[in-house]
């Protein structure tokens, strides 16, 4: 049984990064945040504002989830739980956008103005 416990421990115990890695990740996140704000102010880069902001915030999101929330190092099943939830959340956003923005608002406006 002790051997079994040790094997189980070996399977589920995952090494997390140390302080140095955490600080490096935080510096990268801070740089990206500064870049986000900077690109918002630079009018000559307005043409790629949306793409740049979406890419940078996605990088920040994934970095925090991977390193600070340890999904990169923990059991993969936890990543599946969160990943599936993100897919459902994005589906909710798209569904609500289609339902309300395209249809329901028109109905509501017609109802209010009629």
């Amino acid at each position, binding site marked *: *049984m*002790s051997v*079994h*416990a*040790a094997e*189980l*421990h070996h*399977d*589920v*115990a*995952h*090494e*997390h990064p*140390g*302080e140095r890695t*955490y*600080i490096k*990740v*935080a510096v990268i*996140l*801070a740089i990206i*945040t500064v870049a*986000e*704000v900077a690109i*918002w102010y630079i009018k000559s880069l307005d043409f790629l*504002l*949306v793409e740049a*902001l979406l890419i*940078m*915030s996605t990088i*920040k*999101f994934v970095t*925090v*989830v991977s*390193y*600070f*929330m*340890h999904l990169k190092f*923990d*059991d993969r*099943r*936890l990543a599946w*739980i*969160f990943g*599936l*939830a*993100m897919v*459902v*959340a*994005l589906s*909710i*956003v*798209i569904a*609500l*956008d*289609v339902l*309300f*923005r*395209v249809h329901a*608002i028109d109905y509501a406006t017609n109802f209010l103005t009629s």
Partner: protein
Amino acid sequence: MATTAVDIQTARGAGAAGHDAPGHTGGHYTSIGIDSRKIGMWIFLASDCMFFGSLIATYMIYRGRADELFRNGQGNGPLPHEILDIPYTSVSAFVLLMSSLTMVLALAAVQKGDPRGTRIWLLCTALLGSIFLGGQYFEFTSFHHEGLSLTTNMFGSTFFTLTGFHGFHVTLGVIMLLSLVFLSMRGGVTQRDAINVEIIGLYWHFVDIVWIVIFTLVYLLPYEKINTIQESGHQAMRFLGLM
């Protein structure tokens, strides 16, 4: 029974530094080898993703509607581009981001068996969270003085609901962090209890990633650009026959 006790002791000894270790705090491990409290927190966070997804979608939809009504002379101001303060919110976003760093440093300290370091980093995290909340209170107050309330227009309703619920989550996080500090001062947060710090840390980082999304979509992306993305999406869906 005796064998089981030895088994748990062995696992505890082996798993001092790894918080996924069975027997780390004893009696919370599922048949798949992951602490049930950790799975519970991840499932809660998964449900919270959908909650915030709905709030963000509602904001994106109605913010544009408020703009359109105002241009047609039917709506009330103020509107997002008139009152959102980017430099101020950037500092708030930075503060919350750095609180995630202090949170993982608290976790690293408790895993090393450093109670003083754990308390210091937990207090730093709670302090940064409180600074963020203070900033949000100031922002809400200044918006109110400028004439934006929950009932002014659709932008106000959705903005205050979204950011207010986020602030509520941060408040709960600060309370949990201060509870951990209090427990730690009474010797209740040791190396073997690292899982408790990790679980509260997961919640705290989630609050941070939600703000990463809110900061980009609510504060930085101009409405006209969002409208373009949505229109492109609708065109794609029409092309695919989904609309």
